[in-house]
């Protein structure tokens, strides 16, 4: 599904990713953990194609195709979805209208007709039930006045609607209370299939109780320095990151 080799990226003059390698296969869930400033969110942004970041080396392949030269919207059309840590507000544009534009633009890129309104409404109904979203919520302006939990739930709702091949959840658990966390995690679990893959970026092991990863990676100073199974996350929770740094320096 996703194969990143020796990825290097910087913002302005600051090197952030310094030779990142990761391979994610279809059907897998990978967790990326690491201390603040390790480059976790940068990794997400670079995969999605945010133009502030300059890729200075390495490659990003999605299903065998190099996507590192594609515009962000083209990457989205190829099946990349990023659940933002801080989703932006777009006043006056309802959640429904936004998701409609989003779906139809992706369909257009694939040479398909716009999704008939009837099908769209049906899908909206299904997915909002799955994520326990009150449908009144869908007529509100995108993220405007949303609570932290509502914003994150809305991100996962969009993910459910768009059915991406690769979903990257950037600190989706931050700002969520335990009930919201459970709902969001259940949603992600229900959307998981053998044909798609999920990368979960998080600070805390808490989320991984709900979304159980196949692999856990520790990102430190722009590189993946340790990989393991879900037990690694528990160990990190218990011992923090310092022992890894010590291991590296040894």
């Amino acid at each position: 599904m996703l194969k990143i080799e020796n990825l290097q990226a910087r913002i302005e003059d600051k090197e952030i990713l310094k030779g990142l390698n990761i391979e994610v296969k279809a059907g897998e869930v990978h967790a990326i953990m690491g201390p603040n400033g390790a480059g976790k969110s940068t990794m997400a942004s670079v995969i999605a194609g945010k133009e502030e970041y300059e890729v200075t080396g390495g490659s990003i392949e999605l299903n065998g195709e190099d996507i590192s030269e594609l515009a962000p919207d083209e990457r989205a059309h190829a099946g990349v979805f990023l659940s933002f840590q801080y989703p932006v507000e777009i006043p006056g544009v309802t959640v429904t209208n936004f998701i409609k534009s989003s779906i139809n633009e992706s369909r257009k890129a694939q040479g398909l007709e716009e999704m008939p309104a009837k099908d769209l409404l049906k899908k909206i109904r299904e997915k909002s039930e799955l994520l326990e979203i009150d449908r009144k919520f869908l007529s509100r302006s995108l993220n405007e006045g949303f609570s932290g939990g509502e914003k994150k739930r809305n991100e996962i709702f969009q993910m459910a609607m768009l059915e991406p091949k690769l979903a990257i959840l950037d600190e989706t658990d931050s700002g969520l209370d335990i009930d919201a966390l459970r709902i969001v995690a259940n949603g992600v679990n229900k959307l998981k299939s053998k044909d798609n893959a999920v990368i979960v970026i998080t600070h805390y092991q808490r989320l991984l109780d709900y979304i159980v990863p196949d692999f856990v990676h520790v990102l430190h100073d722009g590189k993946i320095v340790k990989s393991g199974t879900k037990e690694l996350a528990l160990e990190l929770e218990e011992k923090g990151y310092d022992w890894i740094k010590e291991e590296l320096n040894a």
Partner: protein
Amino acid sequence: MKYTEDDLKKELETQEYEYGFYTELESDTFPKGLNEAIVRGISKKKNEPEWMTEWRLDAFRIWEQMEEPEWANVKYEKPNFQDISYYSAPKKADPNKSLDDVDPELLEMYKKLGISVDEQKKLQGVAVDIVVDSVSVATTFKKTLAEKGIIFMPISEAIQEHPELVKKYMGTVVPKTDNFYAALNSAVFTDGSFCYIPKGVKCPMELSTYFRINEGGTGQFERTLLIADESSYVSYLEGCTAPARDENQLHAAVVELIALDDAEIKYSTVQNWFPGDKNGTGGVFNFVTKRGICETNAKISWTQVETGSAVTWKYPSCILKGNNSVGEFYSIAVTNNFQQADTGTKMIHLGKNTKSTIISKGISAGKSQNSYRGLVQINSRAENARNFSQCDSLLMGDQCGAHTFPYIEAKNTTAQIEHEATTSKIGEDQLFYCNQRGIDTEKAIALIVNGFSKDVLNKLPMEFAVEAQKLLEISLEGSVG
């Protein structure tokens, strides 16, 4: 691949005016210049009665004594009023022809504008009065309207057929002495629409006029007079476009609305005149006086979508004379390249319990300047008057400007006045968010701008809201790469 603000700026500068074509029609054009003989000539050409000629001449003499206003936040080279031709009529136009007889070249022109008469005819419930340059060429649905006693015709015909109404109301809301451009218009207006809705009649369809300037070096001075008699209702839309020309063209219209007791007028404008090219050359000067008067319990609602003109100077206003009368102003003004807009409204509260609402949305791109200028005036006898104003500005890039000049004069202590203003910028983060969801930058801007303008777009009649939305997209099209 990297898209920067510089790219945005470059793209904005290179976008072309979609309607920049010029139709070759044989025209009947007056020599350039303005004097009493020209004013008499226009009146004669229109076969007007003596009183009308005198009215025009009076206005001309007033105009001669006046100076061009300079208080607006716009800079331009003042037009040379002696270098303009004040009358230009497409030769083949004949108001008595049926639509099928209309010059195919004219129809082609409408088609390019996306408002082909054929289409409009099919659009049930829409009657169109189209003014190309100065003469109305097609009026539809006249019969249906006549059955209800509604008069909807070019003002030149109304002067012949309903002189008593024209005489009674013309110049009562915007007097000849009102301002420089209103005086000029009163002297030389060539056409425009006249509408009268009888007592208690609810006009069954949207009434619509389409204006465009065609001939080079001509000015367009249309005059619209709309009277809603007691307890009547009408919704009226005017649309405007002009082909691209190098020299600036002058447009100085006057619109007068009269809403008698319990009447309601909804007046919507979609203006897409040539804004000039990327260097700020050419474009239309749009100096317009629009004002309505509300008698007891009456309501006037102005909605405008302004995307064109090099310079716009326009303040659709309401005089809330009657008790319990209501005035509304909803505006979207888009400026790009070197466009300058100074637009807003005046709400003059004279009656008791009068209420006004102002919602203004300014969108600036390129090197344009976009100003909101509004006056809310509460007279000493206007007990319990209320006003709510909201002025929002959206900026694209960092070389444009948004300005807000709200004036409030309250002479009655019972007045309640609220004013809110915001300024925001389309952010890289918003664009990236949309991109990440598969929406390209151009579409994303359209989406964001439409969202920003929604409160006003919602006020437009349904079929025109769609058109206006399209227009917003076109005006900002190619604004990013």
